[in-house]
């Protein structure tokens, strides 16, 4: 069986950045498994600009951004198998070696030994079926990403008269793209009272083209038996229930859906990685390591990001941690369990104390990544990424060690569509007694600004 130090599942932005960082940390035997015919992942269909402002301090298109990483990986001699799909990962039991099963036309079904695995499979779009939108099931209903691929990669228009449900970033980008390519986008409906996308996308993709954004609206009927003939949009109340009497018919031949992204964790679940109900991604510690030792996660498989720059940054960290893990294994004789792990536990899943101090998401915070911190393992500054549960103005992000506030960060405005971050310094753990939990919450005021923001955007 082929053996690698690190096998990376997915050659998108996360997988590439993780591979490069691991290689630069001194690990040679690295393999990327990528199911499509080119590396770069979903970036390849994101032909709009706006990528790389943080990483490269310039505006790139998606393929350009991906290309920089692909070239770097190539120049470092990192092996990337294209058109190869990982179909199973079996967590090692006796020895800290995992078995990845992959399939391709050229190699058939193969098993690969991995001392460490980095999960970088990305995410998928929530389909129509997950929303229970009533009506018929005609042609002409696409998730925004599928439409993006058809238009940007294949040169085909999935529709001419378009309504978009959901104001996620891909939907907003596609409203602009469809318009530029000659379609008419009649409206973007969003069930929430605020957009799920980045503010800059609302301005640049909707406002600039005069496309109305209908907040607190949803599709309540799909018309047409063979092909979409129109949709009924209704206003919803505060419980997201359609308000009778507000129905409005929009003739259209196409409905695009941009109603959420779901991390693709079928392989992770299959190998026994514990997932977070809040993110649908693995629960990881400060080293982005899951509860199976040597298995790391980064990018959209871990939690859905807004900006690829943060994916790259996070994935680089995962690559470095995986490299450290492998080097640490190398110090010991082969087969010795990772020292942090109790050898008595058969599946070698760490107990809670070994996993570190849990981070809890409280008032106004939906989740944090990581979910655990081992203070002795953290770098001098650790970035905690999180999302909020609602739109809040003039609030403060509050970090408490149990009941003791240790850090506060003021924010003028926060929204669920924009990922937030806060840095924790290691010295906090030196200045304060080691807590049982690290609590994250928002200090909010009940001001009317929040409501104004929601209604007027």
């Amino acid at each position, binding site marked *: 069986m082929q053996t690698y130090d690190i096998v990376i599942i997915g050659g998108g932005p996360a997988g590439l950045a993780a591979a490069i960082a691991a290689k630069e940390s001194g690990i040679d035997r690295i393999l990327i498994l990528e*199911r499509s015919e080119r590396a770069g992942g979903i970036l390849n269909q994101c032909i709009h600009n706006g990528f790389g402002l943080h990483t490269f301090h310039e505006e790139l298109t998606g393929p350009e951004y991906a290309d920089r990483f692909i070239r770097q990986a190539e120049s470092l001699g990192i092996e990337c198998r294209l058109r190869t799909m990982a179909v199973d990962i079996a967590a090692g039991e006796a020895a800290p070696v995992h078995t990845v099963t992959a399939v391709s036309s050229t190699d058939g*079904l193969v098993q690969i030994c991995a001392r460490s695995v980095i999960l970088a499979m990305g995410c998928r779009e929530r*389909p129509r079926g997950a929303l229970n939108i*009533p*009506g*018929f099931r005609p042609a002409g209903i696409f*998730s925004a990403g599928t439409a993006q691929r058809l238009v940007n990669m294949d*040169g085909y228009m999935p529709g001419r008269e378009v309504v978009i449900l959901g104001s996620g970033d891909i939907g907003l980008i596609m409203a602009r793209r469809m318009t530029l390519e*000659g379609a008419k986008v009649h409206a973007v409906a969003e069930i929430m009272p605020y957009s799920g996308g980045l503010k800059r996308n609302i301005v640049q993709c909707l406002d600039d083209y005069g496309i109305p954004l209908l907040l607190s609206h949803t599709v309540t009927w799909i018309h047409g038996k063979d092909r979409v003939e129109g949709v009924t949009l209704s206003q919803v109340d505060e419980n997201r229930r359609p308000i009778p009497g507000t129905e409005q018919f929009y003739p259209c031949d196409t409905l695009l859906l941009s109603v959420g992204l779901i991390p693709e964790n079928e392989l992770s679940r299959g190998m026994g990685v514990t997932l977070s109900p809040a993110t649908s991604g693995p629960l990881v510690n400060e080293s982005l390591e899951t509860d199976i030792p040597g298995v790391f996660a980064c990018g959209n498989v871990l939690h859905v990001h807004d900006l690829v720059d943060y994916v790259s940054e996070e994935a680089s960290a995962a690559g470095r941690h995986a490299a450290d893990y492998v080097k640490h294994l190398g110090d010991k004789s082969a087969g010795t369990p990772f020292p942090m792990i109790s050898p008595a536990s058969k599946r070698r899943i760490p107990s809670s104390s070994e996993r570190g101090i849990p981070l809890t998401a409280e008032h106004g915070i939906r989740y944090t990544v990581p979910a655990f911190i081992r203070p002795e393992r953290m770098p001098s500054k650790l970035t905690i990424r999180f999302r909020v549960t609602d739109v809040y103005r003039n609030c403060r992000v509050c970090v408490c060690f149990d009941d003791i506030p240790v850090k506060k960060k003021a924010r003028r405005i926060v929204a669920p569509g924009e990922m937030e971050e806060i840095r924790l310094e290691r010295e906090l753990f030196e200045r304060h007694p080691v807590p049982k939990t690290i609590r994250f919450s928002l200090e909010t005021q009940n001001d009317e600004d929040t409501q104004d923001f929601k209604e007027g955007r």
Partner: protein
Amino acid sequence: MYDIVIIGAGVSGAATARELSRFRARICVIERGEDVCCGTSKANSGIVHAGFDAPEGSLMARLNVRGNQMMEVLSRELDFPFRRNGALVVCRDEQMLPALETLRQRGVQNGVTGLCILNREEVHSMEPALADDVCGALFAPASGIVCPFELNIAMAENAAVNGVEFHMNTEAEDIRRTEDGYEVLTNRGPLRTKCVVNAAGVYADRFHNMVSETPLHITPRRGEYCLLDKTTGSLVSHTIFPLPDRDGKGILVTPTVHGNLLTGPTAEDIPDKEGVCTTAEGLSRVMERAALHVKGIPFREVITSFAGLRACEDGHDFVIGEPADAPGFVDCAGIASPGLSASPAIGEMISELLRKRLNLEPNPEFIPYRKGSPRLSSLPFEERNRLIRGNPAYGNIICRCEEVSEGEIIDAIRRPLGARSLDGVKRRVRAGMGRCQGGFCSPKVMEILARELRTGMDEITKAGPGSAVLKGRNMEWL
């Protein structure tokens, strides 16, 4: 001049065609859809019922029990997935426990074997996910699950291989009596035939009433369903029914043969024979009712919802046979639930009737076997590798959710009565049937279809004429 024209390539029409292909006869099946299995047969529970529901002495009861008995052999002959997972009719009210015994006795009368009543402890140990207030159940080990598409497609393919003609996109518009039989007028011209089998689902009353003075009346009864992701398919291992009420068997919760969890159907009589839309009320009802007898159904894992129409005849039974005033015209009408379960027996019954009427001789070339295409993801390691070495397209995964390779999709297109649309591919090999619902694979499946059918991408449809997926090229309208 045909011996027999069968109207409808649903499960009844396909079963009849397959049974009749055992005999020497010129037979054709006309189907208004673009594929077999396009109507009621594609949107149902996929349950092979044990047969305790239908009233004693009814045709439904007899054919259900017989169809259930035939299904195992048929699944081996025709290579489609069928599993006897057993069913539980659960009771949540101590007062209603006697109803289970009534059901059991009816089942025994109908000839169902293995029925037994389970007490609270027994039923909860069999199915830990049952609601806490379930206090007893009728266990029917003979009940099974089948893939409705594969059952229908397998029977049709086998009929086609044995010489039955299939004409898709062919809609019967009128039927006239002639001196030596019937003339079926279709959108693609007239067909003359000695006999007609009317397996037209919710439209069977319309065709019957064209030739007979004794009217039939079929009411479409809509059933809405929610299908959940494969991560949830092991929540229950048996098919769970509530106690039946006057609307039918109630909203069930069942694993599917492919490992999903399915809940439904509602039962709503509607006037529209095309009303296969879901409704907000219907889907809420499915979720509320299902949650009454099974706890912890993760409805956030719903991947799709759909609706089908049962063809309910006013007499509440299958109507199979010739009307007194229309010899040679064989109704196969009112095939509501348990129509799928009964289908092999329905085919057998109609075939026997026509054999006698037309004095049909056995077809010496009849092949009872059909081999499905390989399903790579379910094969052992070495076997899978051997196939990939022989055909590298089997190693190229197109549908990641269901792990379907390019080779399997090509097979689905090239087989007898092969797929011509995205839905046709989906029903045959499940590409697009998984949790992303074709989000990733549909553009690739369209490319494969266009290549195999030697047509343009813009010709590819979701489900036949009028449902083209694409509208044009970039910038075409600028």
